[in-house]
Each structure stands twice: as C-alpha cells, then as structure tokens.
C-alpha cells in the first residue's frame, strides 16, 4: 500500500510537488524564525545580563529601589562577607562585585590643565587578581581596538569613540572626577591601557572600565559594593531557577528591617527585563501556532483544489468498487508522506538559513544609534534541539488536517450519479 502510494506520488508530480513545496516553505520559515528569535532574544538577554543585570543581582534594599540612578551612597556594606556567603550558599553560581558610577573624564595638556573633557559612565569590575573572572565574561579581549587590557591597578579602558573625541592615546594619563560614596569630590588619575568597542551603543557612547579596587579607592568605597552579580555556571539564564534562588535568599533576609540589608533580584525582576523574558518565552510558541494555523488554511485550500482536480479519479475509484473510507484514508496516507517529505526538506532548509545567520550574523549596528536598551549590534540566530523537531508540528499536522478537512467531500458523493459524472 505504502509503496503503491509512493510510486503514485512520484510518478504524478502534479499531486506531490506543489504540496511538498508549500509544506517545505512553511516549515523552513517556522524553523528559521524560531532559531532567529531564540538567538536574538537570548543574545539580548545574555548581553543585558553580562553588562548590567547578572542572572541574579544582590544589592542593598535602598540601592535596589533607585538602582537606575547608581546611588553609591546606598551601597552594600561588608561586601567581602556577603560575597563569601553567596559563594558558599549558591555554589552553582559565579559571583562578582561591581560598582557603576557617573563622572567626568578630564584629559590634561602638557601643563596639567584641562585639554578636553566629557561625561562618562563608569563600570568597575573585578578585572585583576585571583578573583578576576569578568574579562572573559564581558569579552573585553575581543573588544580591544587599540592598546591592551589593564594588567595592573591604575590602568583603565575607554570606549574607542570617546577616546577619539577626547584625543587621548593608550599610555596617556587622564583624571576621573566624580562623587565619593559620602558625597565628597573624587579625583583619581588613571592611565589609558586601551580602547574598546562592544558594538553596543549604550556602552560605546562614553564609558570607562576599571578594576573595582581602583573604583573603591577613587570613590572611598572600601568593603562596599554597588552590587554583587551572579551568573549560572551553565552559562545561560533560567528564569525559574533565578526566581527560586532570589526568593530563597530574600526569605533568609526577611527578619531584618534594615534598609541597607541585602536583597536579591532575578534578571526578570529588574528594569524592563520581565517583559523581555516573557516575550522570549512566548514568541517561539506564537510563531509556531501562527504557522500551523496559516499553513492549515493554505493546505486545506490546496487539498480542496487537489480534490476537485482529482474529482474524476476519486469518482472512478468509487465506481469500480473502492470503499469511500479506503479512498479517504489513502489520501490521508498520501498527505502523511507529503507532509513528512516537505517537513524534512523544510527543516533542512530552515536549519541551513539559521546556520548562515548563526555563523555570519546580520549587522544592524547602524540602526542601533541612540538606543537605550542594550541590544546586540549583530543579530545572530541560535540553533537549538527544538529546531530539529519543531517543524514536524506545523508540517505534518497542517497537511493531515488540510487533507482530512477537504477529503470529507468524498463521503458526500452519490454512487448513482458517478457514471453520469464520468461521461462528462
């Protein structure tokens, strides 16, 4: 039976080529779109996690309420103790202290007076020493444009565009001016080790990156930290796990009413990330559902048209004694074969296009100028296990559904009128 149907489909291309093509195109789009959304949304989430939110973040309660303003006067005290406690209590996470601040970079002339200056966003990470784990996480080595990475205290990185604007070269000294955590004036000399470009407009506009020890000296924040960020050792954000972890930590701290006691927030509890995480979860489902629905309509129509075109054939088969039920199910079997073939071709093609986008990416940095949300300048797809079987749902279901719906007409045919039909 299967062989008979296969040979039939193979010989009569008009019965198989168009439906296979339609299924293949639909499945290609489904697989590609899923990989694209997974890649783009995932990259955006991970990028925001790496640079800003962490997978989870620990701050003082007072700091957390105003965290967008980087209020270092409300920073978390005894940060080294809290860091040890977090490392012991949550061993599946990597923890790191960070300080964010705003200030002014002033470049001196040969007399030590102001030659150029500009406002800057400061990012202090654990770049040096045994605990240094941020260079790799932030991809600083890949982002270097000129000079080198900081190797000792007193060295810092500036964003390339900002350094060019200030007319400063690697090896030159500049002064960081800001506010200490007590509100005093902070002046701190740094040497420009190198310049960086992340391809993220928010970071590339004007930023200085320095070791956290330098920031502590400059801002009088000894054993204080703005935030302690945690990253899953698995390497990707799991919202459910992060929320559970935050709830567990906050439960332990719930007995104190101190506004400077620590509080843990998952990535999706910070800024506008809640909506983004939800979106990334829902979009794949929506895309698949939309394609299943749309393709069902298309294939139903294709099936109807095919059914009309094969009106005579079906009539003849019933006239020579074939059961209506048998004719109906043979058409369903045919649709399974067509759906399978189309899905395999579509999955392969979709994966191929997704692989191209995953490997080479699509540069949209030109469209990102002035963007306030941290988004990757190059869109990349990400092929996951789901992409290998996702296409079978719309590919098989819609084909079978379309044929099942259009084939109902077979049961309405009257044997008595068949010969009259065959004469025409």
């Amino acid at each position: 039976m299967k062989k008979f149907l296969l040979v039939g489909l193979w010989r009569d291309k008009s019965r198989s080529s168009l439906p296979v093509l339609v299924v293949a195109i639909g499945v290609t789009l489904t697989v590609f779109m899923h990989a694209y959304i997974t890649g783009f949304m995932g990259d955006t989430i991970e990028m925001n996690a790496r640079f800003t939110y962490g997978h989870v973040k620990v701050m003082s309660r007072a700091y957390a309420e105003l965290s967008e303003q980087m209020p270092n006067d409300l920073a978390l005290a005894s940060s080294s103790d809290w860091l040890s406690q977090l490392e012991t209590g949550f061993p599946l996470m990597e923890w790191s202290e960070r300080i964010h601040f705003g200030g002014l970079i002033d470049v001196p002339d040969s007399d030590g007076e102001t030659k150029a200056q500009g406002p800057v966003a400061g990012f202090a990470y654990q770049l040096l020493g045994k605990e240094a784990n941020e260079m790799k996480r932030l991809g600083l080595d890949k982002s270097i444009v000129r000079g080198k990475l900081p190797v000792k205290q007193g060295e810092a990185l500036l964003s390339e565009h900002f350094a060019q604007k200030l007319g400063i070269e690697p090896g030159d000294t500049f002064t960081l001016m800001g506010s200490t955590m007590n509100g005093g004036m902070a002046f701190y000399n740094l040497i420009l080790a190198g310049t960086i470009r992340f391809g993220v407009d928010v970071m590339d506009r004007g930023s200085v990156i320095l070791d956290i020890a330098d920031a502590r000296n400059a801002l009088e924040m000894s054993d204080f930290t703005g935030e302690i960020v945690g990253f899953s050792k698995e390497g990707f954000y799991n919202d459910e796990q992060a929320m559970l972890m935050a709830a567990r930590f906050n439960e332990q701290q719930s007995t104190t009413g101190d506004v400077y006691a620590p509080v843990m927030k998952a990535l999706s509890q910070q800024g506008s990330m809640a909506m983004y995480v939800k979106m990334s979860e829902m979009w794949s489902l929506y895309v698949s559902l939309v394609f299943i629905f749309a393709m069902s309509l298309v294939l139903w129509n294709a099936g109807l048209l095919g059914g009309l075109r094969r009106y005579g054939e079906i009539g003849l088969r019933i006239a020579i004694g074939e059961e209506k039920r048998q004719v109906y199910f043979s058409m369903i079997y045919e649709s399974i074969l067509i759906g399978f073939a189309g899905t395999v071709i579509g999955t392969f093609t979709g994966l191929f296009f997704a692989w191209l986008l995953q490997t080479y990416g699509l540069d949209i940095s030109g469209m990102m100028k002035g963007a306030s949300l941290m988004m990757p300048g190059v869109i990349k797809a990400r092929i996951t296990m789901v992409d290998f079987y996702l296409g079978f749902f719309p590919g098989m279901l819609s084909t079978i559904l379309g044929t099942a719906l259009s084939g109902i007409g077979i049961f309405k045919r009257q044997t008595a009128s068949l010969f009259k039909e065959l004469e025409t």
Partner: protein
Amino acid sequence: MIVILKSFFMKRCLFFLIFSVVTNVSAQEADDILARVDQNMSSTNRIFESGMTIKGRRTSRTILSKTYASGNQKSFTEYLSPASEKGTKMLKLKNQLWMYSPSTDRTIQLSGHMLRQSVMGSDLSYEDMMDDRKLTEIYDARLIGEETLDGRKTFLLELTAKVSDVAYYSQKVWVDNERFVPLRQEMYAKGGKLLKQTEMKDVKRNGNRWFPMTVIYKDMLKQGDGTVFTITSIVFDQPIPDHIFSKASLKQ
C-alpha cells in the same frame, strides 16, 4: 441712554487708571525692596569662613572652607577639612571655574552641564555658587503679598528673569520688611517646577547691613534633608590681593 453709556465708560477708564497706578506703585515698591535686599547681600568684596553640613541619606558631614570674593566676578575658595577634602581649591573668574585637587595635582576646568552638578554632594550646584549677581540686575520684581514668617513680617516678591543666562527662571522671595533680608526663597524652572528652596536664619547686624549667617539649601529634585551652610566669620569690603584670584594660587 447716552448718559448711561458715558457713565459706564467713565467707570471703566477710572478702574484702568487706578489699576495701572496701583500696578506701577507695586512694581516700583518691589524694585525698591529688591534694591535694599541687594544693598544687604552684595558687597565690593568679602572674606568669610564657613561650614557646610550635608545631610545625606546615610551620613552627615561638615566641610569647612575659607572664601575670598571680589564683586560678582572673582572668588577663591579653599577647603580646610575633612582630611579627604583638605587642600581642594576652587577659583571662579567671570564665568569660568577651575578646581584643584591635591591628590592628583590637577587643575580641572568645569564647564557646561558640569556646572549644574552638586558641590561636594551638597544641595548647591556650582552654578548656584558662581552666580553672585545682584537680584536687580537679573530679575524683574513684583510685590504679590505680605506674610508673617517665623514671627517676622515679610514682603512676598515674585521675581521673573529678565536675562537669559540665569539658573532659575523665576523665584518667590520672602523679604523681612524691617531688615530687608530674604528669609526664604523658592526657585522655579521656566515650566513652573520647584527646583530649590532656601531658608535664611540667624540674621545678624554687620556694620551697616543685615546678613543671614545660616542658609539651609534644599534641592527639591534630590533626596536627603538638605545642606546647612553656616558662616562662622565674615568681613566685608576688605582689600584682597589680586594674586589670590589667579590660577597660580590654586597649586600653592
């Protein structure tokens, strides 16, 4: 009918005449009040030592400094304590401002939006510190009422900027009606938003003028309990050597 119309127009003319006279008198009176405020608050030059207590959300700290000021064009401030601020100096010449930090041995010029930043984490901005112009030079005044403030009778003036390079477009000023010293000021943006509020206390007689020795500043856009600026000693119209107001004095 004509008589009625005539009477109506006469009444209207009389009303506008009285209204314009009252308005002019009010404006004249307001200008006079403001001029007397300027007589008290402005001087050819002054030397004073002050303490600035900044009440933050977590800590409170006091910064002591000594300031030399000549007219509204030149001033020089040296911070005396705490240790972290000691030796920091600030020089203002016309509309330019330089800061010297001994820890970095750098002289940094502040300009543009940096002038709107807080001085030492206080509720004062550099712009506030720099603008020593007489109120009559930069504002038109209107007397809008009289109120009693902390037991003192005051004139309530509404000031509107008549020049463009002013930090606050309008102000409400409560002026002591005997001593002609402002006791409270509210500074507003052009859109009407209250930006800053000051209260003057401890008004003392100094020579032929009255002067508030304590000013409480509150930046309304900032959390915290404000900044208390207290003058511990002040002398007016004393000769100040010119070399004080030079960039060379910053590093000395």
